[in-house]
């Protein structure tokens, strides 16, 4: 693709790629905006949820996914963890001059396929080509709207001492897969990104645990970031048990070599949920019954100790603090 040609031919080419990919997803004539029937939306709930996210990833294609899949899942999941049924997405694409059209086609196809799987429409979009070096290959921004179920009120500040903390499966796969793909690390592993739309799984969870306090997708900063935010916002302590964290031996080995703490690795198909203690078992059973929750586990509980702090009980019976990091896991040993 060339930048600056700006001609309508180029424009048409790009539009073609996306139009072709997204056609049949409910997008009608190429108006400047998508339009929704409010009455139809209100059938799903009583509040509108609205979110946006930018996606940059190196490499664009990685085991288990690609930037397109990521861009759809990320926004779908951000809507779903708020208790919303995702309805439609927009997507804005910034393309670096020189990116092969074929790459773009693959990404668009992946977005379309993921959107279909998640049951959302990609209802509007925009593309721009910029000069070489002005961006790195391809950046995608997706924005999504959804409708929040009536009566459901989940939030980061709603955890209480005694509540139970769950995740829906193996942690750290996405972060490890990306680093592995980026590094050519000579490791015999087949770690794949867990990138997946979680709205279906979340529907199941909400049904099983109506008292649900909060959900968050554990993306950047991993479980550590979410749990710290939760501890801070709810003014509670959180105690995690290292032995309960579901994690592939491969991911643990990978972290061991790279000197990374898997709790800080990004996930793209994992939610962390907090439920009242009496709903913990049903929540766990429901999660495990879902294909994306087979390895779900209770990983800890909310406490009244050390508000704002996350403490992990280590496999050796000791304790350590799990911090929110400012620096990038900078060395702390003197």
């Amino acid at each position, binding site marked *: 693709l060339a930048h600056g040609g700006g001609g309508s031919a180029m424009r048409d080419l790009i539009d073609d790629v996306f139009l072709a990919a997204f056609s049949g997803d409910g997008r009608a004539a190429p108006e400047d905006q998508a339009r929704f029937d409010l009455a139809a939306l209100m059938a799903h709930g009583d509040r509108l949820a609205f979110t946006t996210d930018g996606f940059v990833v190196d490499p664009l294609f990685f085991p288990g996914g690609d930037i397109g899949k990521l861009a759809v899942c990320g926004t779908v999941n951000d809507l779903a963890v708020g208790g919303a049924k995702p309805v439609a997405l927009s997507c804005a694409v910034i393309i670096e001059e020189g990116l092969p059209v074929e790459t773009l086609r693959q990404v668009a196809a992946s977005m379309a396929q993921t959107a279909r799987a998640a049951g959302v429409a990609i209802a509007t979009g925009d593309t721009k080509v910029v000069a070489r070096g002005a961006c790195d290959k391809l950046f995608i921004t997706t924005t999504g709207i959804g409708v929040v179920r009536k009566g459901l009120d989940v939030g980061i500040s709603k955890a209480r001492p005694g509540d139970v903390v769950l995740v829906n499966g193996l942690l750290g796969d996405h972060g490890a897969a990306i680093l592995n793909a980026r*590094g050519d690390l000579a490791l015999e592993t087949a770690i794949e990104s867990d990138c997946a739309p979680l709205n279906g799984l979340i529907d199941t969870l909400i049904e099983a645990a109506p008292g649900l306090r909060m959900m968050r997708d554990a993306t950047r900063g991993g479980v550590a970031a979410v749990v710290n935010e939760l501890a801070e916002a709810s003014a509670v302590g959180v105690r995690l048990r290292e032995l309960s964290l579901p994690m592939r031996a491969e991911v643990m080995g990978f972290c061991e070599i790279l*000197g990374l703490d898997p709790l800080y690795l990004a996930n793209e198909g994992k939610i962390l949920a907090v439920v009242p203690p009496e709903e913990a078992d049903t929540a766990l059973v429901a999660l495990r019954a879902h294909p994306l929750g087979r390895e779900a586990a209770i990983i800890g509980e909310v406490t009244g100790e*050390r508000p704002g702090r996350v403490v992990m009980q280590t496999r*050796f*019976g000791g*304790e350590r603090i799990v911090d929110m990091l400012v*620096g990038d896991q900078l060395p*702390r040993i003197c």
Partner: protein
Amino acid sequence: MGTDATDSQGTGEEIEVSGIVQGVGFRPFVYRLAHRLGLGGEVRNAGDHVVIRISGPAAARDAFAAALAHEAPVLARVEQVTRCPAPVPDGAFRIVASGAGTVSVGVVPDVATCPACRAEIADPKARRFRYAFTNCTDCGPRFSIVTGLPYDRPATTMAGFPMCPACRAEYDDPADRRFHAQPIACPDCGPRLWLEGGDDAGADPIDRAAGLLRAGQILAVKGIGGFHIACDATNADAVALLRARKHRPTKPLAVMADLATAHALCLITPDEEAALAHPSAPILLLQLKRDAPLAPGIAPGQRHLGVMLPYTPLHHLLLAAAGRPLVMTSGNRSSEPQIFRDDEARERLAGIVDAFLMHDRPIARRLDDSVARHVAGRLRVMRRGRGLAPMPLTLPADFADAPPVLALGGELKSALCLTHGTRALLSHHLGDLDEPATGDAFETARADYAALFAHKPAVVAVDLHPDYRATRLGEDLAAAGGLPLERVQHHHAHMAAAMAEAGWRRADGPVVGIALDGLGLGEDGTVWGAEILVCDYRTSRRIARLSPIPLAGGDAASREPWRVLLAHLDRALGRAAVDRDPHLTARFAGKPLLTLRAMMDKGLNVPSASSAGRLFDAVAALLGLAPDRLSHEGEAAMALEAVAEGEAPPYPFGLHAETTPAEIDPTPLFKALMADLHAGRPRATAAAAFHTGLAEAFVAAAAQVAKAEGLTAVALSGGVFQNARLLDEMVRRLKARGLAPLVPAEVPANDGGLAFGQAVVAAARRMG
């Protein structure tokens, strides 16, 4: 009274004594001194000093004034004696009660049992024969029992022990050595001792405990500042069992022994003997005798042994009854903080010890044993704890107008520092802040010190590292109090600590600094730890550094020395040469070299670091002296120091002056090391040549900087300077070049001294 009536009339003077003269038995000392010299008058506390009025002949008054400094109680520190003629009425010398509104006396460190009390517990006719809590104004618990101020019995953990009439009489008698000894106690009214666990109750708990120890059992012993875990230091099985239960495979264990036994175990110089017997009774690192009658597992691979003398009557009695040296290691599980509360001990130590030797005097705050070592002509503190804290340090005179600073220190070996004018309180060792319990204790200690010393900071000082928990706490405190926050680069703080302790004034300008350390975040976002700086108190410039290496895996590289060895060798010899060398292929057998190198190539969690600590790790690993994974910080460096023997010509380093900062390049060192490895040179010699080489490289570079900048003083600090051989070499070489080394002694060279350095930098910056 008066020995010579003719010249005693109306001759009097007022003497003001400042320094550490309150709460240390100073007034009874003055009282006895005045009576001995036949002088009349009075003594009282006033503010933070003592005012004495005496009447008597001039010669006796002179003798009195001289003795004030020379014969002062062990705990006192007389800084200034000001004499001024004044009319003082005749009459027997007396102690005047401090008036209301007088500033309360300060808090002083705990003191090892004095000779008089030792004699008393050994005397079958004495009231306190074999009494484990005997003390007097010259000795006993202080900081470990204080719960509030003023320092008075109700504000100590002795509050629950009302004095019996006999103790009360001693307490009230100015001539008695227990006059106003707040923790005074006797078997009738004081704390008692008992044994929990083990069988047959009833017998004397000391004898029973000693019996268990002799039988190879492991005991928890409640002491002054916390619990120890004790076992027979001559019993290999007991030591192995203790290590297994405590999950402490190799870290050296401290031993408590009487002086005669200590002499049988270690070579002890007169200076070291004085340090052992000092009222602070630290754990002293002493050179182990080759045939020392000791279990082999005490200090595996070490040439040195940490030894302390018994410092409470309980210890004296227990040691005498056991009749052998005892392991006395801190009572905790693996890396957790030392336990100091009874219930916690029962719960946390249950799986480690067979019985508990308990007492009912509560410990107000945890105080680990202090650790020190005699190096380069001085006693150097490695851990400031019981017996040393909270003794204030004195800042150079031109800090008198500094605003009060609170400095939070580093992440590991954490300690706080509070300053007020030229007084600096460097707290006791608070531990490693990644443990939640230590984190809590750190915050408690901060509040504790602020309250005890009525300290209100005007400035808060922290490290540059954003993720040190101490930095976070400092940021929160500054924000909450609306106070300015000073961020101080790690090694600048290390240097400033050395300068301030040495009395270097702000007005004295810059010094050359040699920082040899583990890792500290630098101003450029990379990690530093082997730098030559030019710094004054306010600013610091980096002139040279050890060539940086990629630290593959961040902190993992500090735990696994082979990682830094690979980085150093790849850099010095090239990958192909490393892969061809049979010694190295053997050394790296089974290690994921390809992955590590890919990480370095792609920059995946690979901070760049110039670190002396990691250079020690690499060389130790190359010489086969480091395990794949270290079980405690400093393990590899300690092994390298322990193995070094004899004199050896220094290994060479390169110096690239053309880069900024200049680079001290270890490439020639690694080439020479490899050649010696191939030649089968003994590693004792190689280790010695490494120490000398590193010393020479940094001294030579520092000397160049000193010359170029017209400076003559060189500050040395950072954790690597706990290495006696290196420090000794560097000090000698600096002096030989006419440079004046400034080396910390009372302040730890490791991160335990960081807060002190941060505090002086912050103070200096605020003073402009």
